[in-house]
């Protein structure tokens, strides 16, 4: 175990551009162990890009990404993979492997990275599915699942290795309010159970305030605001208020309607 004072995640001066467009502009961000950080921002502003830098799916053009004090990009690929075992990541649409059943999806990291017996893997898969309230669907094909179920199976796969750091990419986007609430409760349970460091990307304020110990807002390639939830809500910054009230007229500049999720 590493020292508790070393932050779980530390981004220093991380910049990224796609073609001409600067998406991240020298971002500094530190997340201490066990904290849950919600990153808010408009669609297409680079929230997912930020998240992908934390786990090393994208390599920064400049700056460093440190996980538990280890610089992700000075490590050898094998060591980087080793470090990634501390992570669990849930993707926007679940990103389940469609060539496998639900059970095989969740068992994938267990079979690959642990020496658990077949029975133990099965038990762990059932346990993970129980945590997301989807008992007994091991043998279903992923194509049979609804959007909300896919995400929950994605959560189950992400927590299979009991990761120290959990990343959620828009866990509730495109779902109805009831399903959203159910998912928030699931994430809450996961947090109580494992106390992981969490980074959650969303533009849903209800989700943000329900889960966050800290709210950061991404705008113009920078961390624009970084506050505890209550103070964030009360902050009189026009960008924050526009997001809180869902009112684009507060902003002086036109919202970027052509922007969309990266890639």
């Amino acid at each position: 175990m590493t020292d508790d004072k070393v932050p779980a995640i530390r981004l220093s001066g991380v910049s990224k551009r796609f073609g001409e467009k600067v998406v991240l502009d020298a971002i500094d961000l530190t997340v201490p162990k066990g904290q849950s950080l919600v990153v808010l921002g408009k669609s297409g502003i680079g929230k997912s890009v930020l998240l992908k830098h934390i786990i090393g799916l994208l390599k920064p053009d400049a700056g460093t990404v440190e996980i538990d004090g280890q610089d992700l990009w000075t490590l050898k690929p094998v060591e980087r993979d080793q470090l990634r075992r501390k992570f669990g990541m849930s993707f926007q649409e679940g990103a389940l492997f469609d060539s496998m059943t639900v059970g095989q999806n969740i068992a994938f990291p267990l079979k690959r990275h642990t020496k658990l017996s077949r029975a133990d893997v099965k038990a762990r898969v059932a346990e993970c599915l129980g945590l997301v309230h989807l008992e007994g669907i091991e043998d279903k094909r992923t194509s049979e699942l609804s959007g909300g179920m896919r995400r929950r199976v994605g959560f189950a796969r992400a927590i299979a290795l009991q990761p120290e750091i959990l990343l959620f990419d828009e866990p509730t986007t495109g779902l109805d309010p009831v399903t959203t609430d159910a998912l928030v409760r699931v994430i809450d349970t996961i947090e109580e159970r494992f106390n992981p460091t969490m980074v959650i990307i969303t533009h849903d304020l209800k989700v943000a305030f329900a889960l966050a110990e800290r709210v950061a807002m991404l705008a113009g390639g920078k961390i624009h605001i970084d506050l505890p939830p209550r103070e964030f809500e009360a902050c009189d910054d026009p960008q924050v208020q526009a997001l809180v009230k869902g009112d684009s007229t507060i902003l002086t500049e036109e919202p970027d309607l052509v922007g969309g999720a990266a890639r």
Partner: protein
Amino acid sequence: MRTLEALGNLLLRFLTDIGRFFILAGETFRGFLRPPYDIRAWATQIVRVGFDSLPVVLVTAVFTGGVMALQTFKGFARFHAEGYVGSVVALSMLRELAPVLTGLMVAGRAGSAMAAELGSMRVTEQIDALISLATDPVQYLFVPRVLAGIVVMPFLVALGNGTGILGGYLVAVRLQGANPVVYMNNTFQFLELNDLWSGLIKSAVFGGLLTLIGCQKGYDTTGGAEGVGRSTTSAVVTGSLAVLVSDFFLTKILF
């Protein structure tokens, strides 16, 4: 000026593509030697590339052998050399036609399927999910497919050789009235073991090339469903070209 810029861009893209290919090829070959060895995935791919390609490869071979016999018979009759039809059919099947045509068929079937599969995985973030689960996607996806291509192609070609010779025999004996015993004798009279080996070795190289290209095109897919379509087409075109071009150089240098 604009034309020059477009040309430059085209060249740049071409060179990037080639560079990408060699990087991923290097990673794949390193993956061959590194655990975990995913035998089950490998077996699945052998079935998909090999067994599932069998019908189309055999049909291609039997008709190619047949048409070779038909054509050479016509030509050779002009200088009374009908007796050598069997030799020509066997020699051209073993050295050239079976490996190349099988390569083209497998590029169309398996290479495109790999590009489509990996491309869909890319655009639905499944490849990102693999990485996030601490799994090297090149090792997990490329290695079993490329290894299957290298191992399976020689077997397909060997079977293609047999059916091709059979096709030639049927046409010559049944349609053109050649003497079956003489034809069979002629078939094997001038063959050397080297003819067989050269075809099989070439085909193993083709198998590696076209599966690598299929995987790479899929892996580097961008732009949603349309992008998957582009990758699939590109896998077939590039794979087929790679087979034809490398065939020339392999034949020239090695055999």
